[in-house]
């Protein structure tokens, strides 16, 4: 993955929404971890589907991509894949930088 992956270009009109957006993503990450731990793959699929819709809409394409991975892995009962996606999601949320345009 290139360094650019961590730079998100976001519409300045929605700048006010971004702090809450990240707060919700962190809660989401915890929910995914808990769902994986308890084997609730349906919950992982649902959250993944939601990430897919919201990520690109806000300008965070990788969130949509990772969301699709969660959704696909959950459908395939691929717990290892979900674990890898969790690590990638945590990494992304930690490093992402927002540029408003």
């Amino acid at each position, binding site marked *: 993955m290139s360094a650019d992956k961590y730079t998100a270009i976001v519409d300045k009109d929605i700048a*006010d*929404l971004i702090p*809450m957006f990240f707060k919700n993503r962190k809660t989401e990450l915890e929910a995914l971890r808990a769902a994986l731990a308890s084997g609730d793959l349906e919950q992982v699929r649902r959250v993944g*589907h*939601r990430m*897919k*819709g*919201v*990520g690109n*809409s806000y300008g965070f394409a990788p969130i949509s991509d990772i969301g699709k991975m969660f959704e696909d892995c959950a459908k395939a009962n691929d717990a290892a894949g979900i674990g890898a996606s969790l690590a990638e999601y945590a990494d992304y949320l930690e490093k992402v930088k927002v540029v408003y345009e």
Partner: protein
Amino acid sequence: MNDPARTAAGDVRLASQSPYRVLIVDDDPDMSAYLALLLKKEGMAPEVAHDGESAITRALTSLPDLILLDVMMPGMSGFDVCRALKSDPETALLPVVLITALEDRESRVRGIEAGADDFLSKPVNREELLARVKTLRRLHETRKELANRRLAAEIAREDALLAAISRYISPRLANRMLRQNVDNSGVFPTLRDRAKVVVLFADLRGFTRLSETVPVSKIVPMLNEFFTELTAAAHENEGTVFSMAGDSLLVGFNVPITQPDAAERALDTGRSMIRRFAPVALRWRAEHGLSVGIGIGIEAGEVVVGNVGSPTFMSYTIIGDAVNVAARLMQMAAPGEILIGPGAFLSLKGLLGGAAESDRREVSLRGKAEPVEVFAIRVPPQ
């Protein structure tokens, strides 16, 4: 401001000035906040519901102009909500935009089946969102304007009809018939229906001399002035003017709409005619040196009411003994006097029993073997 056309137009103007209300239904708070912010920046008024049930309640409580509805929600799905809204007459016309995943063709088909008006793909593209919402908004406003124009045209037609009918019956009566949907079925029946009617005949005493003295060109405006006061008095009391011939006027009460106090209305009309005409008579006297006044006859009885004439020219009229008696009484009445026949007097007895301005007398009427007792009322000009 009481004019309904003006009020209706005013309402529509206000509606188009009020912000366009969009109800966003999405269980994801980030998505609903995002859509709400974009719409707000375009000057619209977004509202948010996070599940289907509360969206329906909200739509029914206060109808928005548009709904943006997510398909995938816990509980009621977007399809369920859409179907519910489209099957309720209150919300059936409310435009619904379903938000589906881009690749999800099946959802679109199900959405069409559920009655959705348009679709939006997730992830939501700002330009696409605004383009779709604006298109539906234009459509919505065009529909509103068309409805408004139809309403205005309907009111204009009704006004024209009212104006036409008001030339024959009192405007208030016409208004009640048209606007309050009083039983119209038998308003203008065929000439076979019998009805108990109070008849008033009024004419201008001294008209023959007047027409001999005053130039013909002046007679018509004078007669118009005379009839204006008389019809105004009739319409004040919701009487129906049946005919206007020469210098006489025939007015009916309790027809075509029931008036339990028809005899009182007729008497009030007679008094009002004499009082209204008094200043006109004074002026004519000053201008032409001629003394004129109104003579009035009132009688009640069963008459035949309806249209008489040929297929191309009909006259709405009343025929019967009470009409003949009222006409004879009118001819016998002195200027400023009302003669009331025995039929009408029955209804007015309580009212006239001890009136100082009145007296009873017996008169012989042409065509009647026995003299009839009539009641005479002198009406002072003021």
